[in-house]
């Protein structure tokens, strides 16, 4: 029993971070129908930034997370303007977004591998290996802080979407792009803001994962597959779905890892993806979308 609670605690903490990693991905799909295969490579790139900031300047990764957000916001807006605006009217728009982001992903991966080689790295602030003890259970400090930051950012995102004027626009665009345009939402501007936010969230989560997981340039494929699996589970484009999917799958994979070994953690995600495709292709919270 003690052990099960311990596994649950670790799974929930992990789920918080996955939710943040996936939130940007699902936002980009929900608002702009962009399937962003480059989302995780941005996370890895940001992890490198946090790593070098810590190694060379002693900047705490949690501080890096805050610093990376505005920078990555601008990167996101730049990517949106140079790539996606060109293909807005394309007949095969969604497919184009996949191929374009695929190309971006391999360019960034190649650059990261060229400059930083393929060796594994992790940022090691003192709290990364420390823990709080509550009775029989331990709560790793690093994961607790990372989940705390994730929850704060997700709440911030929720508040922004719920209570600001731009947030209304984003939600309206998610529901129905052309109707939003008719009622006066500047869909282009909204899209570029949403993509900027999506990339900023990737930047913040990159700083967090820099001390949670060892990373190397090609690691992003595994992450993007995990993230896509959990947003498919939750229903693509649904923020609530991404958060629930992240927590469900992180807890499930924690139990699988506990029983079967660390190798089978990612397998949980892939099998869940296939299972959901068989049973409910639109995901838990998704609507049947025709693309």
């Amino acid at each position, binding site marked *: 029993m003690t052990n099960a609670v311990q596994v649950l605690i670790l799974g929930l903490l992990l789920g918080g971070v996955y939710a943040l990693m996936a939130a940007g991905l699902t936002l980009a799909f929900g608002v702009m129908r962009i399937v962003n295969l480059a989302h995780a490579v941005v996370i890895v790139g940001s992890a490198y930034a946090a790593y070098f900031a810590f190694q060379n300047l002693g900047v705490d990764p949690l501080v890096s997370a805050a610093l990376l957000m505005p920078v990555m916001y601008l990167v996101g807006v730049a990517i949106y303007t140079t790539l996606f605006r060109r293909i807005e009217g394309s007949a095969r728009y969604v*497919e184009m977004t996949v*191929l374009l982001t695929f190309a971006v992903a391999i360019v960034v991966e*190649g*650059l990261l591998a060229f400059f930083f080689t393929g060796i594994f790295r992790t940022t090691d602030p003192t709290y990364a290996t420390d823990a709080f003890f509550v009775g029989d259970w331990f709560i790793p400090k690093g994961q607790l802080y990372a989940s705390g930051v994730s929850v704060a950012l997700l709440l911030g995102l929720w508040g922004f979407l719920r209570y600001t004027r731009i947030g209304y626009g984003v939600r309206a665009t998610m529901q129905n792009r052309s109707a939003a345009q008719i009622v006066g939402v500047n869909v282009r501007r909204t899209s570029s803001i949403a993509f900027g936010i999506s990339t900023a969230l990737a930047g913040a989560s990159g700083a967090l994962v820099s001390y949670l997981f060892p990373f190397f340039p090609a690691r992003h494929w595994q992450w993007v597959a995990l993230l896509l699996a959990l947003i498919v589970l939750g229903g693509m484009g649904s923020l609530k779905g991404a958060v629930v999917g992240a927590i469900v799958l992180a807890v499930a994979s924690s139990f699988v890892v506990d029983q079967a070994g660390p190798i089978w953690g990612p*397998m949980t995600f892939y099998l869940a993806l*296939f299972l959901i495709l068989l049973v409910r292709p639109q995901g838990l919270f998704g609507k049947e979308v025709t693309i």
Partner: protein
Amino acid sequence: MIEDRSLTSGTPSDQSPEALQQTSRSRWVALVALLLLLLVVPLARSIIGPFNYVLQLLTVTLMWVAMTSSWNIIGGYASYISLGHGVFMGVGGYVSGLMLVHYGYSPFATAALGGLAAVAVGALGGLITLRTRGPAFIISTIALLLMFLLWFDNWDLLGGSNGLALPLPPFSPEWLRAPFYYGMLVVAVGAVWLSYRVAHSKFGLGLRAIAQDETKAEVAGVPTRSYKIAAFALSAFFVGAAGAIWGYSLSYLRPTVFFIIGVSAQMVLMAIIGGRGTVSGPVVGTVLIIAINEITLTQFGSSELNLVIAGVLLLGVLLFFPLGLVGTLRERGNLPAFLDWD
């Protein structure tokens, strides 16, 4: 032969019958000459001495021709982009490799079996992944690939991530590369032939209809689901066969040779740069990319930069020539006859 061209690039055929016959003849002459040339290349060894490097390069080119042409059946004709075709290459490689290790059958004899195993995996995988359309399909093919990587990396019977050593091929060292070259040549010709046959069948027409508008295709009576699964499975065959021969030529099978996204990335890149949905596009794209890879490798000596160049090229082609080289030239009406294989 000409009617369905309008489906791929929208160019109406305005050539006279005589001119068409003329193009058709010059195309056949060019293709037969190319094939004869490829058949005699290894014999040049007795004249100019050893040239394993060139032969190896040609073998690699033929392998990618085979795999990209096969990928084109699902990714080009049906426009269902698969990033999981590395799975089929690996299944072919491991099936033939195991037949060699355990029963002593040469992979040249069992390559077809490796291909059939890949077809079986494709049919089963397709049953699940093809329940989805568009982006969800692409995502599920990535998951399929990573699942196989994880599985093979931890399957002790197959050597896990350490790999599986194969007995060395019994060929004399000076002719070591030639059998692999001829094996790949057969696979590549087979794959291009299959691609051509699919393009000119009712099945191919159905796949193109699916690519245009799946709902309308279904309403018009195309059995979309079974066509898609058939296309996915069929596109696995020569990828598996190529994997069998490639694995033997490496004489060492490791999951990271096959089950990586880079393998699938190459197929996507080569097909798109050459021109998806055309017969010659994947071949042209393969030759182009292999040439560029060779140049960057010798100039910069770095495979990481290859990835960067490949990505930049893909971006440029997608944004400015989405039909690829062959598709764009055809649309403008100046595709040379010897490259028009449709």
